[in-house]
């Protein structure tokens, strides 16, 4: 960071309200951080720009709740769930074909559950309410517009867009989501890089609950999660479909630079997906309720910012913590995990009387010791592999044609042998068997 930026904030008076911590952003990361701090008996204010937590937030639709075990005992009895995911399907597609790997587990539909579909306006609000019940003060419709610094350049709070809007605190926890302005202002973020981000675009479609049950083979509280590859006209990314109680969330996730290059409107890609022969029958008669778009920090471990500085730490998407490793798109659980860890680290730092970067350093070691950074580290090469040209543009078609070749009955011509079929299909898609083998080894290394 440029030293010149680190000037003391003029007019930060001593009657500016002081707290142990200010958490910016009442998304999952911010509410979890505020909750951990409030439960530790710290005074904490949670600042949210939307009129209520979750009002501004967009995601696909599945939250993996194991991380909540630590937050609320038997959370499944009170969380605002839409459906419990009991079926998870990975679909590889071309414009007219699809091959699915479909997994169904009865255990996922029972306590303690695995994943749930939930709506962010309800879920985020529920989590923020937990923080408020624990003693955090939530201020909505308020934007944190900048950092307050003391004479030594140390961060001592935030400025907001309200009159007399300065908040002094021992530590600022920046949970302001992807493209965090606070992390940038603190000099923690490397310059934004489009290739480390994808654009998620989704529609929520109304469909009566019993119709969802019938079409997707579900019972009332059961849900399905379908992840799709090969449905984005060659733009690196993928698609998703999640069932809620009376709605279906359908969307695509697209590499930003490739989307710009392709000059395609994202809604055209959603329209393609809705018309795909493998998707359209699910959605017949569905009507549009909502349309939304949001950036996703998909760069993973190697693109994360520095996580602490004197008087401030960064959690959730602000620290690029969404795990987007091909088969996984998990962000909310990582945000909650990092928020809780941030809250604990701030509590320890305050107890030790040292809120400098050194005093807050236990945050990173805590994250490394649990799934948040361990998973990211394990899958650090996954984003590059998953968004690579062959995986995105060649393999979905190759797999579909391979299955087509196996199951299309060509009497009186005899069935082709497996090796000949693979060779000819690979050649059709411009893939050499050598490359296929190399990619298999690479995938094993990345995910193994």
């Amino acid at each position, binding site marked *: 960071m440029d030293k010149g930026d680190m000037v003391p904030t003029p007019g930060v008076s001593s009657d500016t309200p002081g707290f142990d911590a200010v958490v910016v952003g009442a998304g999952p990361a911010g509410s979890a951080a505020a909750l951990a701090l409030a439960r530790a008996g710290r005074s904490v204010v949670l600042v949210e720009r939307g009129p*209520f937590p979750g009002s501004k937030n967009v995601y696909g639709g599945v939250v993996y709740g194991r991380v909540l075990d630590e937050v609320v005992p038997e959370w499944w009895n009170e969380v605002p769930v839409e459906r419990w995911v009991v079926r998870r399907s990975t679909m590889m597609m071309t414009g007219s074909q699809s091959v699915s790997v479909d997994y169904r587990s009865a255990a996922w539909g029972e306590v303690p559950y695995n994943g749930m579909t939930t709506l962010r*306006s309800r879920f985020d609000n529920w989590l923020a309410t937990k923080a408020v019940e624990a003693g955090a*003060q939530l*201020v909505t419709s308020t934007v944190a517009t900048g950092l307050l610094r003391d004479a030594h350049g140390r961060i001592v709070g935030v400025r907001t867009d309200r*009159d007399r*809007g300065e908040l002094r605190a021992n530590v600022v926890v920046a949970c302001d989501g992807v493209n965090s302005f606070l992390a940038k202002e603190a000099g923690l973020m490397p310059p934004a890089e489009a290739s480390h981000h994808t654009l998620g675009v989704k529609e929520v479609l109304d469909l009566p609950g019993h119709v969802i049950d019938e079409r997707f083979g579900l019972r009332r509280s059961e849900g399905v999660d379908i992840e799709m590859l090969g449905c984005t006209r060659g733009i690196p990314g993928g698609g998703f479909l999640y069932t809620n109680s009376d709605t279906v969330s359908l969307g695509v996730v697209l590499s930003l630079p490739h989307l710009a290059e392709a000059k395609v409107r994202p809604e055209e890609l959603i329209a393609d997906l809705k018309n795909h022969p493998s998707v359209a029958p699910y959605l017949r008669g569905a009507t549009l309720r909502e349309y939304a778009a949001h950036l996703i920090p998909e760069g993973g471990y190697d693109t994360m910012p520095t996580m602490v500085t004197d008087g401030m730490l960064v959690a959730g998407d602000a620290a690029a913590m969404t795990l987007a490793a091909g088969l996984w798109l998990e962000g909310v659980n990582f945000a909650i995990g990092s928020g809780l860890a941030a809250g604990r680290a701030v509590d320890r730092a305050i107890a030790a009387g040292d809120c400098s970067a050194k005093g807050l350093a236990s945050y990173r070691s805590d994250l490394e010791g649990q799934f948040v950074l361990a998973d990211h580290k394990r899958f650090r090469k996954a984003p590059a592999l998953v968004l690579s040209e062959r995986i995105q543009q060649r393999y979905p078609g190759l797999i579909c044609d391979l299955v087509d070749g196996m199951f299309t009955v060509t009497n009186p011509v005899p069935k082709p042998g497996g090796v000949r079929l693979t060779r000819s299909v690979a050649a059709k898609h411009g893939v050499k068997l050598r490359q296929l083998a190399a990619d298999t080894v690479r995938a094993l290394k990345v995910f193994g």
Partner: protein
Amino acid sequence: MDDIGSGPMVVACIRITDLRPQIEPLSGTVVREPWSTGLSPADAAALEYSFRIAEAWSGHVVVITAAPSSADAVLRDARALGATVLRIAGGSPSSDQAYVDELGSDERGMAGMIVAALAPLGRPSLVVCGDRSSDRGTGALPAFLAHELGAAQALGLVAITTTDQESMVVAERRLDGGWRERLHVPCPAVCSVEGAGVRLRRASLTATLAAQRTEIPQVTAAGGPGTTRGADPVGPAEVVVGPVRPFRPRTRAVPAPDSDDPRLRLLTLTGALVAHDPPTVVGPIDAAGAADALLAFLIRHGYLDTEPVGEEAATEVEW
């Protein structure tokens, strides 16, 4: 109950409701969520006008609503702005949904309830409401309130300003053709305002934080129509409407079609087979240029003469 301020009492009577209710498409059931509760633009305007008028009169604002506890966050915001707040609660929290359903159904009874709840605070000089609530509101409540209070009423306003006298406000109401009528409203009065023209002020952060720690005073629903009617046997003073010319577009003489064939006459009259102006792209131009282009189009097609319209015209009206 909060400490009541001094000076004339201006009451903002507002409806706090879910601004984004979900409507079950098959049954039409309205599902309301407590966290997306807020003020409609009309209620926000009512609150802002209440503050402006109370400031001008060196008076104080009382905000009253009949709602379940989900309204408390909005009331705390109003308190952070300096108002005294009061919530008329339903029977029990478990029947919140039933209470909200009931609220819209009997506006006369509701007016009685509100006036009864206000009675211990004194007689309001002015009550400002939104012109209608976004939750099934018919806009009738302000009229019932005026009746219960024995006050004058001026409804569906776009602006309220104070005068030299505290016994009078001046209000504006839209008329057709961009005209406005100006009303001299004697107080006590009940006014309802459209959600336009003003933006509700925001409280400072310090006041917001302080207000969050406070309890919202509540009274339970009581009263009913006619229980509290103000004891003014003469009735309210009359609202005086300023003289305005009504909007009368000039008649356009259309020459009779020149043919004996009814079909041709019809075609001429309707212009069905005549080439029309193709759609024209006039932009990109700035707002003033766009307004000129639109006006020129309307004048060219005989919808407007060249006289000024709208607010400009309202100021030219002789009083």
